[in-house]
C-alpha cells in the first residue's frame, strides 16, 4: 500500500520533518539529520554576513534533503510575506513554513496576521504550510484560504511539554482535508508517536533533537516514534474498557 505523504503535490518520503535550529554545529546536525531519516528540513532567513556563509544549505544539498524555508521572527503579515518571497528567490522553492508569532514569551501564532499572510502567499503561488495554534476553527480557515497543510502546535515552541490538548489535535485531524503536521512542543519519542496515533500525517520538530544530550540518538528515537505511531494509527487500537477482560481461556470452560 502506498503510504507516501503528499503536501501540495510534493511527495515527502519521511513523515518526520526536521528543523535545523539549535544544533551545536554542522557536524552534530549532519549526524542527527541522517539518523532521523528526514527528507524535508526547515531553515530560517537572516541577513547574510561573511561569517554566516551558506553552510547549512551546502549540507542539505549534499545530503539530498529538501529545504523548507520558514518565516521565523516575523510579527506581521507584511513581514512574513516579504520573508517568504525572499526565501523563494534565494532557495528556488515555493514551499514555505509560515510563522507569524505574537510575542517572544509564548511564541504563539498571531491568528489574524497568520491568516492574512496565508491568504496573500497562496494567491502569490506559494505552497503554504502554516504553523498554527491547536485551534480547529483557525485550522479550518487556513485550509479554506488554500493552505497545503496545517501545522498545529502540541505546546509552545521549545518547551518540550508534548501535546497539551490531544482532543483539539484529534478534532483538527478529523475535519482536515489537507495533511496535518504536528509542529512544536514535542519533547521525546512517545510524544511523536502520540501525534501520529492521533492521526497526524507527520511531525515537525527541532529542539527535542538538537538540544538533546545526544542529538543523533534522539533523532533515531524520533524516527522510530513516528513510524510506530503511524503503524498503530493504521492498525486500529482496542477500545478502552473499565473492567478487566481476560486474554486467557476460562479454566472452567
Amino acid at each position: 500500500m502506498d503510504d507516501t505523504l503528499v503536501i501540495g503535490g510534493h511527495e515527502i518520503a519521511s513523515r518526520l520533518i526536521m528543523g535545523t535550529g539549535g544544533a551545536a554545529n554542522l557536524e552534530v546536525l549532519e549526524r542527527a539529520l541522517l539518523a532521523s531519516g528526514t527528507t524535508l528540513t526547515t531553515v530560517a532567513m537572516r541577513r547574510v554576513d561573511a561569517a554566516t556563509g551558506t553552510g547549512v544549505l551546502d549540507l542539505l544539498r549534499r545530503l539530498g534533503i529538501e529545504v523548507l524555508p520558514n518565516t521565523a521572527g516575523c510579527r506581521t503579515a507584511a513581514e512574513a510575506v516579504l520573508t517568504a518571497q525572499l526565501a523563494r528567490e534565494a532557495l528556488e522553492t515555493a514551499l514555505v513554513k509560515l510563522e507569524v508569532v505574537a510575542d517572544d514569551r509564548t511564541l504563539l501564532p498571531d491568528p489574524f496576521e497568520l491568516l492574512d499572510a496565508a491568504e496573500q502567499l497562496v494567491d502569490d503561488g506559494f505552497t503554504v504550510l502554516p504553523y498554527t495554534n491547536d485551534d480547529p476553527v483557525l485550522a479550518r480557515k487556513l485550509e479554506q484560504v488554500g493552505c497545503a497543510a496545517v501545522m498545529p502546535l502540541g505546546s509552545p515552541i521549545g518547551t518540550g511539554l508534548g501535546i497539551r490538548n490531544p482532543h483539539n489535535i484529534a478534532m483538527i485531524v478529523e475535519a482536515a482535508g489537507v495533511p496535518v503536521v504536528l509542529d512544536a512542543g514535542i519533547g521525546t519519542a512517545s510524544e511523536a508517536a502520540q501525534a501520529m496515533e492521533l492521526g497526524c500525517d507527520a511531525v515537525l520538530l527541532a529542539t527535542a533533537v538538537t538540544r538533546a544530550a545526544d542529538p543523533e540518538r534522539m533523532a533515531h528515537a524520533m524516527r522510530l516514534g513516528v513510524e510506530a505511531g503511524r503503524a498503530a494509527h493504521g492498525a486500529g487500537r482496542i477500545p478502552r474498557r473499565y473492567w478487566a477482560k481476560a486474554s486467557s481461556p476460562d479454566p472452567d470452560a
Partner: protein
Amino acid sequence: MTVFLNGESRELADGASVLDVLDVLGVPRTGVAVAVDGSVVRRADWAGTALTEGARVEVLTAVQGG
C-alpha cells in the same frame, strides 16, 4: 552615495547595482536574495537595478532555524 546595507551605512559608487552590492559583501551569488526598500529584486534583475541615495538594501540567506 550612501546606502543602508543590512542596516549599516555604506559608501558606494554612484550608479552601483544590486550585483555590485553582493561583491562588496563578498557573498556567493546562489542561496541569497535581495530586497531594496522592502521589495524583492529578482535574480535576473540584479545587474540592471541601480541603487539610489539612501536605499535600504537587505541581503538574506538561509541559516539554521525552525
